């Protein structure tokens, strides 16, 4: 826990430094900087967030509820949940496997592999949709074969799931790799010496150590999966009640000038984002606390 100790020492230094006149700013500058920062965040963050909920409730609570229980909205909610329920576990298994290989072993080309895992993060979501159209679309590599076998990927649910997997591909792996690298492999090796099998080591040693990072990655992946718009928009075909996810449903309602309903569905997604942030803060608080406990027990 050397790293944690150093950081907490520095934080203490920071607190000390902040009180020192020579290493801090005059009060008026402090408040001016805080003011500018808050003004920026208000303009770009808080006001748009507040706008989602005000616009959603502008026509009253009954219109709001009606927009959410309408059949097309319900089927959009259902499809969004299904896509996330498939994409998140698949990326979870991948993230754990990738982090295990990268953090616990040395091999050639590791840094290239890490860069390639990051790749979907840098690719435009529109291109993420396009690549699956090129492969599974009617004119694509497998297009003819798929249509012969009467199986639709593009403009159907499999395409939506694929696009969702692509855009959320790196998040769990990115979260776990640095965490597992920092933890090293001594504990796993100790388990091995004591006669545990590979899976036993994973379930009893590794998993408890990475559970908060894992949970954080899952929450983030889930938020992005449910909210993905660009990639899903390319492969979905926008068939109302069939291949519309919640973000696509928002777009359709908005383009029909049905603003109250568009913002009502959008408010659900915004609420999901807020829950995600709350859980993230909770996890950070938990990890900080367990780091402190470890530190304290190491000091004894």
């Amino acid at each position, binding site marked *: 826990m050397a790293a944690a100790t150093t950081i907490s020492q520095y934080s203490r230094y920071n607190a000390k430094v902040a009180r020192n006149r020579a290493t801090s700013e005059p009060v008026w500058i402090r408040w001016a900087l805080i003011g500018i920062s808050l003004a920026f965040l208000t303009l770009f963050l808080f006001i748009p967030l507040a706008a989602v909920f005000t616009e959603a409730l502008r026509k009253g609570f009954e219109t709001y509820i009606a927009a959410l229980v309408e059949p097309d909205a319900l089927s959009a909610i259902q499809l969004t949940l299904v896509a996330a329920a498939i994409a998140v576990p698949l990326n979870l298994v991948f993230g754990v496997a990738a982090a295990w290989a990268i953090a616990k072993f040395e091999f050639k080309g590791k840094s290239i592999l890490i860069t390639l895992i990051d790749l979907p993060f840098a690719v435009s979501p529109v291109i993420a949709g396009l690549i699956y159209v090129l492969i599974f679309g009617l004119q694509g*590599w497998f297009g003819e074969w798929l249509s012969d076998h009467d199986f639709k990927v593009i403009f159907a649910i499999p395409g939506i799931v694929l696009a969702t997997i692509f855009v959320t591909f790196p998040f769990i792996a990115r979260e776990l790799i640095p965490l597992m690298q920092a933890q090293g492999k001594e504990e796993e090796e100790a388990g091995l010496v004591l006669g545990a099998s590979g899976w036993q080591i994973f379930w009893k040693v590794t998993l408890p150590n990475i559970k908060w990072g894992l949970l954080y990655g899952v929450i983030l992946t889930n938020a992005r999966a449910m909210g993905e718009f660009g990639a899903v928009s390319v492969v979905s075909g926008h068939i109302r009640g069939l291949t519309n996810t919640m973000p696509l449903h928002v777009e359709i309602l908005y383009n029909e000038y049905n603003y109250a309903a568009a913002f009502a569905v959008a408010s659900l997604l915004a609420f999901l984002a807020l829950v995600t942030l709350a859980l993230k803060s909770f996890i950070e608080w938990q990890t900080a606390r367990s780091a402190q406990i470890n530190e304290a027990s190491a000091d004894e």
Partner: protein
Amino acid sequence: MAKRKHVLPGFTLSLGYTILYLSLLVLIPLAATFAKTMELSFEQFWDIVTAPRVVASYKLTFGASLIGALINAVFGLLTAWVLVRYTFPGKKLIDALVDLPFALPTAVAGIALTAVYASNGWIGSLLEPHGIKVAFTPLGVVVALTFIGLPFVVRTVQPVLEDLEAEAEEAAASLGANRWQTFYKIILPAIWPALLTGFAVAFARAVGEYGSVIFIAGNMPMVSEITPLIIITKLEQYDYTGATAVAVVMLVISFLLLLAINGLQWWSAQRQIASR
């Protein structure tokens, strides 16, 4: 080199699965774009990707992304500084909300920003009398891309600021440096790699962004049409080769940005190790 036996089990399984999953879902599909472009001669490809409407979209996409990333570099650094160094009421809540643009679906961000910055919106109606139009102009694109990139600079600079050693600042102060000199000569060089990384990530993210932009941009060809929208438009006209050609240009630029970001992160990590 002799083949070393790994102590822990599961190397072949985990690495094999990683490479298989990565290849099937990411690498092979991405290679499809390059394969599709091979159907074109170089002249055809060049004509598509340098058509005036496409070039106008590059200028807007990269220009607006650059401005957005610069705004975020300045205000993101300021926000990280305020969050690390000062205490004020509501700080924890604000710290948590900085990640909102990452968690909020882009379509929601798009319609919310449009509602706020349209001429009848909360902020748009205040700007309208001064002749400033945000929604449905290139300025709207900048606003959306600034929103998208907001968390990245804050989140890369924040941990480095937290780790900064107090001694260097104390030494600077005792040698007679004022606060501005200390910031400029001591603090800024230390956080510079992190700041550049955050800037590059915000820029890369903005270049590919689609959902939040299309609502606020107005999408007028040659004026407020971003490159991802060009790809969508071509797709809707069943011009798959055209869409793919433009996508290849964007992909190559994304690869280069990703390489630059990795280089910056490596530099940043080296600096942090060296300063310990």
